């Protein structure tokens, strides 16, 4: 199908984009990479009165390191992150997650900001943003604020962003010394949305003892879910089997999955347990 008629503007600066968005009111929508919005428009599951296209805003496409923070412009394409040496050096989990987003043609075009604001609970960026405690910089015409990813996602496809705001930057902490990560995704075909996915980052000392941990689950809850209760279980341990089982059980108990054609709620909960265990094993190199 084809999208219903709309009006279109392609601003040349972020300020101009914000002004257009303000002028467009509730019926204006931001177009980033278009890999989620355009299918919805084509299928007429969504319609918009006007579109503000951010694709010419090169000043929103960048990867910068600022001491212990990795700042990624919201219009940075998945593929740019996947192959970035700076990202690989600062927080390699991001490159791993980027490689799992859609297919090559989608990664060439889709953006990290678009994925975060679209807020599919099974998507990779919302998951790693929750796992790594990313901070999202939102701007409107007269305000700028920073929202923690863990508070940004409210429900499937629902976030804390206001209609007049644009997500401009995503800030990830740089992985500390001794950081290791695990990323496990279950899907039927490479590039599909996850049935369940787990991302975790641990900090280990020389003996393999964990001093810090964070873990999040995607695809098994109405939002990507950071599971704080896992941390006290794994911190202080060396990741032996009993610890991994306890952590996995904690994660499985924390999610409230819903079932669909790809997997029942019960199946998803069981997969949370299995994949949490595997993600922690992967991080520990077991």
């Amino acid at each position, binding site marked *: 199908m084809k999208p219903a008629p709309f*009006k279109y503007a392609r601003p*040349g600066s972020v300020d101009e984009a914000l002004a257009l968005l303000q002028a467009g009111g509730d019926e204006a929508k931001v177009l980033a990479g*278009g890999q989620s919005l*355009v299918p919805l428009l084509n299928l007429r599951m969504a319609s918009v009165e006007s579109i503000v*296209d951010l694709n010419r805003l090169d000043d929103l496409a960048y990867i910068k390191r600022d001491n212990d923070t990795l700042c990624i412009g919201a219009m940075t394409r998945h593929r740019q992150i996947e192959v970035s040496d700076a990202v690989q050096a600062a927080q390699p989990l991001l490159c791993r997650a980027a490689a799992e987003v859609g297919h*090559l043609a989608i990664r060439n075009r889709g953006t990290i900001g678009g994925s975060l604001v679209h807020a599919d609970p099974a998507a990779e960026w919302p998951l790693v943003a929750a796992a790594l405690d990313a901070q999202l910089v939102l701007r409107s015409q007269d305000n700028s604020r920073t929202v923690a990813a863990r508070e940004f996602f409210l429900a499937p496809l629902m976030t804390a962003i206001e209609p007049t705001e644009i997500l401009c930057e995503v800030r990830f902490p740089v992985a500390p010394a001794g950081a290791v990560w695990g990323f496990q995704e279950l899907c039927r*075909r490479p590039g599909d949305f996850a049935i369940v996915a787990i991302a975790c980052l641990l900090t280990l000392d020389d003996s393999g003892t964990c001093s810090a941990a964070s873990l999040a689950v995607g695809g098994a809850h109405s939002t990507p879910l950071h599971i704080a209760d896992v941390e006290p279980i794994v911190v202080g341990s060396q990741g032996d089997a009993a610890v991994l089982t306890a952590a996995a059980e904690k994660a499985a108990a924390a999610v409230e999955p819903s079932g669909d054609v790809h997997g029942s709620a019960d199946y998803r909960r069981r997969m949370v347990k299995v994949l949490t265990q595997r993600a922690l094993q992967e991080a520990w190199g077991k």
Partner: protein
Amino acid sequence: MAKTQFTELQTIRVRVNGHEYEREVPVRRLLADFIRHDLGLTATHLGCEHGVCGACTIIMDGESVRSCLLFAVQADGAELQTLEGLADGDEMHPLQQAFWDNHALQCGFCTSGFLMSAVDLLNKNPQPSEEEIRHGLSGNLCRCTGYANIIKAVQAVAEQSQS
């Protein structure tokens, strides 16, 4: 600079397979429809029209994209390559020849998208493993041959470039 306004019609300029085109388009026109209907270049196929099947894959500014997930107006100023631009005169592109040699198509509907995806895959990774080829082409659907011969064809081109 003039203040950007919302519009419903825009005049765009694109370069497709080395030819310049200038057309006025409604802003909601999909790039795939623009290529097929406005430019008459019908090698680009439209299957699902929502970014799942990969049949409409083209190369835009050097990267594979799904032309059903872009509006024509977004390609203003871009350099596009479609299947029509792949062969060198009467000489088939090595990937086209390999698809022919390996019987990598049956009905041919998906072939254009597969070829354009494979072009980008080999540009980025000239020596892919079988798994990398499968991963790289996972965004394209074929409903008749299965994928074995398509993979073989891409492998054949990768091997040629090695020797």
